[in-house]
Every structure is written in C-alpha cells, then in structure tokens.
C-alpha cells in the first residue's frame, strides 16, 4: 500500500509534465537570468554613475544587446525557447521595435520603417503615458483637495 505522500510522488513521477509548466519553467530561468545580468551590470555601472544613471545604463545595455541579437537572428531562436522569459524583460520591448524596423526597411525609410517601428512600441508608449498622466491628474486633485480642507 502507498501512503498518500508516496502516492503523490508516484503520480508526479509518472504523469506527463504539462507543456504549460515546462514553458513556464523555461521562462523562469531565462527571464531570471536576464534580470540577474541586469543586476550585475547595475553594480558595475554604480562604480562610475549614480543609482538613477546606472539603472538607465542597464536598460540601454539590455536594449542594445537585444537589438543586435535580433539583427543576427539569434534573438528569435532564444525567444522561441524562452517565451515570456525574453518577452517580459525590456529585451522583449527592444525586439518588438527592432524586428519590424529591419523587416520593413525595404518598404522605404520614411513610410516603411518609420511607422512600422511603432507597431508594438506605439501602443506601449501610448498607454503607459496615458496611465501615467491619469495618475498625475488623480494625484494633483488629491493634493488640491488636501490644501482646501
């Protein structure tokens, strides 16, 4: 007879791992690695910049790396494996800007690359700026209300 604990272990061992779990584990390790790399870079940059600048340089470095790997065609291979692991960090945003830029260059620089570069970046910029402004309005209203009361 199995104890319930042994049974749970047995089920775990014999049942096929669901692709959702497998994908998520891959995303965890790749995404975690990118964030860890960012944190390591942050400590390096702290040697010659203040915290705010170091944070900016980390973002710029990761974007530059993602952009170059996208150009080489390596980014897509990693992304196919990692899923959200490369999409969620700022690398995913960079890829969504670089990829249409390269693909639509032959449609022309002004009306091909120009608008297509914002295919994904456009909505991201729009809704982040909008929600930021909305937060600002609420904050301002609260401040005014505080002063009145």
């Amino acid at each position, binding site marked *: 007879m199995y104890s319930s604990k042994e049974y749970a272990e047995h089920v775990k061992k014999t049942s096929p791992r669901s692709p959702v779990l497998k994908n998520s584990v891959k995303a965890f390790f790749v995404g975690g690695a990118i964030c860890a790399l960012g944190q390591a870079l942050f400590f390096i940059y702290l040697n010659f910049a203040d915290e705010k600048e170091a944070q900016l340089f980390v973002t710029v470095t990761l974007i530059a790396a993602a952009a170059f790997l996208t150009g080489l065609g390596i980014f897509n291979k990693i992304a196919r494996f990692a899923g959200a692991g490369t999409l969620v960090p700022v690398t995913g945003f960079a890829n969504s800007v670089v990829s249409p830029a*390269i693909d639509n260059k032959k449609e022309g620089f002004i009306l091909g690359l120009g608008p297509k570069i914002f295919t994904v970046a456009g909505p991201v910029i729009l809704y982040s700026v909008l929600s930021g402004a909305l937060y600002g309005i609420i904050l301002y209203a609260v401040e005014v209300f505080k002063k009145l009361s």
Partner: protein
Amino acid sequence: MEIFIKIATAFLVGGAICFAVQIVIDKTALTPARILVFLVVGGVLLGAVGLYDKIYSFAGCGISVPLIGFGGNIAKTVRESVLSSGLSGIITAPVTAAAGGIGASLFFAFINALIFRGRPKRISGKKKNPQPESF
C-alpha cells in the same frame, strides 16, 4: 556577499514574473503586444499604489528590468514632478520617464536596420524559394 544575494533576488523575482506571464500566455493566448501593454500599465498601477518602490528596494533589477519597471518608473517620476512643480508634471513627466527606453530602442533599431537585411522566411531550416530582395 551582499552583491551576490541581490543578484540572486533579482533572478528569483524576475524569473517569477516571467513564470507567471508565461502561464497567462499559455492559458489565454494573448498576443505579445497586449502582454507588453498590460505589463507597462500594471507597472504604473503598482507604482501609483506604492508597491513598486517596495518591491524595487529589495528585488532591484528583478522588477525594474521587466517592462513593469518602465511603468513603475513613470509613476515615480509623475509623483515627484506633480508634487514639486504641479500641473505641468502631468503632461511632461510620463514622457520624460519613458525617454530612456524609447530613445535607446529607436536608436538601436535604426542602427540595426541599417546593418541587417530582413531575412526571408525559411521553411524547415532549408532555403527554399529564396525571395528577391527588391523588385
């Protein structure tokens, strides 16, 4: 040692966010563009309620490297700017906070578009019907 712990925390927190988002992608089939928009708006929301700063203080790049950080940074800049200079911050602060990420992305996208050519779609790794570059 302290540095090592900080890097490990960034790994765990950043990994956990990616883990969670991957589940959402697999269960709902949301497109990447929507995921990115939700992440960045979620970041603004986290920043607005003050959670983002708390997570950032221990997780560092674990929360700031994911696109949530983009939104969190916007909320932080908006707050500082509205409290110090009032109304004008509502309009300028969100764009100011986003400037680094947008500027770098556009700059490196253009450079790489100059260097690289769009690659024709390959079928199962073999070069079938190589497409003409231009007509």
